[in-house]
């Protein structure tokens, strides 16, 4: 398969994952804020911090209120990780790799595009916004379903799986990083009262609540949620699962040694400490480190398969 096409399907899967996760995160966060009293450490701006977007946001907006933050995270194309940017990138990458994808994917991408065109002007309204975000999630799942049931398990599929898992790990680590900050020992007493709700919402944001309840047989509490999301070996949203899945996929690709070694190393580092037992500050450091290692892993993938003749070339997409 063409290196250029490999790069496009890889990014298609990354943006698809990012879009779905972003939509879900915003919906869950909105629901969470409805449960919490006002004037807390958790507010709309928490989402901006989660995406490390404080700087870009302040360049374009004066106030960190709901309207501005929703506009920025959902509709603003100045924001490289906004939902609109991610979905536009999904469509663009589908458009340029139509020859390797099942036909329905293009139709789905167009439907999302039409949905965005019609819905973006109305997202200031919470009701319309939630419906829109649900629709986005549904379309993302449709695409994933069509890929899953209609695509041969060829290299295009391998690259999509790798992209999906890399993005998923990245999103999970961002959410865990943010949670660790919120749950640090010096948090307010008001917030402490809502610990349980917070952890439940965290699980929901990662579509993990039901599986957690099924498999962990424990009430929702910090240490076991952290362990579940970092170390669980059968839940497909855990960091450990995703990283292992990536190196399994890489084995099918030509000359996988360098990226596989790197993926293995990231996996080991991520599993080395018991996240349920260490203080919040250390969780934060660990997640920071994980994110930077994911960056290195991406560079290794690009060097090996996308730009084999021009090592050191920067990626052309992404953050």
């Amino acid at each position, binding site marked *: *398969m*063409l*290196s*250029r*096409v*490999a790069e496009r399907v890889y990014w298609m899967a990354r943006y698809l994952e990012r879009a779905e996760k972003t939509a879900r995160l915003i919906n869950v966060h909105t629901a969470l804020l409805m449960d919490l009293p006002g004037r807390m450490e958790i507010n709309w701006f928490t989402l901006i911090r989660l995406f490390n977007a404080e700087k870009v946001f302040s360049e374009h907006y004066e106030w960190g209120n709901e309207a501005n933050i929703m506009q920025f995270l959902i509709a603003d194309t100045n924001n490289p990780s906004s939902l609109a940017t991610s979905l536009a990138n999904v469509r663009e990458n589908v*458009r*340029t*790799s*139509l*020859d390797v*994808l099942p*036909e329905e994917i*293009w*139709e789905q*991408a*167009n*439907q999302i595009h*039409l949905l965005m065109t019609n819905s973006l002007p109305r997202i200031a309204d919470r009701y319309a916004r939630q419906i829109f975000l649900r629709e986005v999630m549904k379309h993302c799942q449709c695409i994933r379903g069509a890929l899953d049931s209609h695509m041969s398990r060829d*290299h295009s599929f391998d690259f999509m799986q790798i992209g999906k898992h890399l993005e998923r790990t990245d999103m999970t680590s961002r959410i865990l990083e943010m949670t660790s900050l919120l749950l640090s020992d010096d948090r307010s007493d008001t917030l402490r009262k809502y610990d349980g709700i917070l952890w439940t919402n965290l699980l929901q944001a990662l579509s993990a609540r039901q599986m957690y309840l099924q498999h962990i047989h424990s009430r929702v509490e910090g240490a076991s949620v952290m362990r579940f999301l970092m170390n669980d070996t059968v839940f497909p949203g855990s960091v450990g699962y995703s990283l292992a899945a990536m190196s399994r996929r890489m084995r099918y*690709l*030509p000359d996988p040694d360098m990226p596989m070694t790197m993926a293995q190393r990231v996996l080991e580092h991520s599993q080395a400490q018991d996240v349920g037992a260490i203080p919040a500050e250390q969780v934060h450091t660990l997640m920071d480190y994980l994110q930077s290692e994911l960056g290195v892993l991406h560079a290794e993938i690009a060097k090996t*398969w*996308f730009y*084999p*003749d021009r090592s050191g070339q920067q990626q052309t997409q992404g953050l």
Partner: protein
Amino acid sequence: MKKEWNQYDPGALYDELIAAVHQPREASYKLVEYLRHLTPERFRQCVQESEAVIREMGITFTVYSDAGNIDRAWPFDIIPRIIPAAEWDCTEIGLKQRIRALNMFIQDIYNGGKILKDGVMPADIVLQSKGYRQACIGMTPPHGVWANICGSDLVRHSDGVLYVLEDNLRVPSGVAYMLENRNITKRVLPEIFNTLPIRPVSNYPAQLYEMLASLRPDLDDPTIALMTPGIYNSAYFEHAFLAQQAGLVLLEGADLVVGKDEYVYMKTIKGLERVDVIYRRIDDDFIDPEVFREDSMLGVPGIMRAWKAGKVAIANAPGCGVADDKVIYAYVPDMIRYYLGEEPTLPNVPTYVCRRDEDREYVLEHLAELVVKPANESGGYGMLVGPHSTPEKVEEFRTLIQEDPNNYIAQPTLSLSVTPTSCETPHQERIKIAPRHVDLRPFILSGKDIFVTPGGLTRVALVEGSLVVNSSQGGGSKDTWIVGDVVEGEEV
């Protein structure tokens, strides 16, 4: 919709579906009856459904403008254009005859030029043609075929005869829209397919693949690629669509390199892999900066060497544009007689070649009635349409022709046929069915065998009275049906 159809009147123009007021042509009878019995609400629903399908299927074309390039939804009219099967069979024979002669001509002029030596046509016309490529001299592509994909433009005059207006031999486009138009019709008018034997068009991608594979008869399973100039090209949608439908590797010049062994390779995740056949959707000028335009960023350095060494097949062959020239067009009937010893089945539009004294004299006397075209332009640039022009413009062309007669041809102004077209947007109260001018672009594939699409792409000028069918200038398109004889009482 009875009222709308009862009022329909093409006047003195030739109409593709209607012979006279209240009188559909035989092949169109069932379609017109079906449409007559739709309520205006149902018809409007069909139009809306077709628009939704187009947006969902992402069928777009690109309009270049100062404000950047915009992808617009493909303009489509749901009333099909019908051609009776018996007439089409003759047309198909004529198209095959014509492409055989054209390919023999290109092969001849790059290999000795017998036709020129025998004085059938003047040598300088060919040698001065913008599409003539010295780099191709002595070359014989597989099966001696140069123009593998041809999209001829046919028009019907008020005499009811289909004429060949031009032979598009370089990189003709539109076939994806022909295929998509049929898909849309199947979704919005599904019932009608039960009552009429409509020839299917869906076989084109498979035929395209087979034709391309036949260019490497030495290989069992050649690797075939479609080379696009990229997403900014106005036909990118078609490139991606054809690659997807026919199973070709979609790639750009930058994905290819020519090796020391003169094979062409694509850059893959496994390293370099050989490409055997390239369906290029990029002009000669840009294909190889080593040979043609040095500044081309779209092409592949060395690809001409690979082609001449027979290590890669290129469709259409470089240099085939020589036969796609307005002056050379005038000689196609002579070519058919010369190479095939046959009379042309499909007529040319009568053409006056200004380099001939008597033709020029006639042209200068009748300028205000004629269409004047320069030899090497396409897309309607640099033309004079006498009856729709000003006296100043006519005088300007008089001077141009006198100064450079070799560069001009002239043709009588044709009265293009019309066909019923829905003319109001669904949001307006009334739907009007009105006559609009159409042309037809069938596609002809030539490799080991010749294949002609049943019908082709019908383009329609949506503005009343307009003859401009280009989608960038207010043109639309229609599904085109080749309809066989209907046996009464038989389900199709």
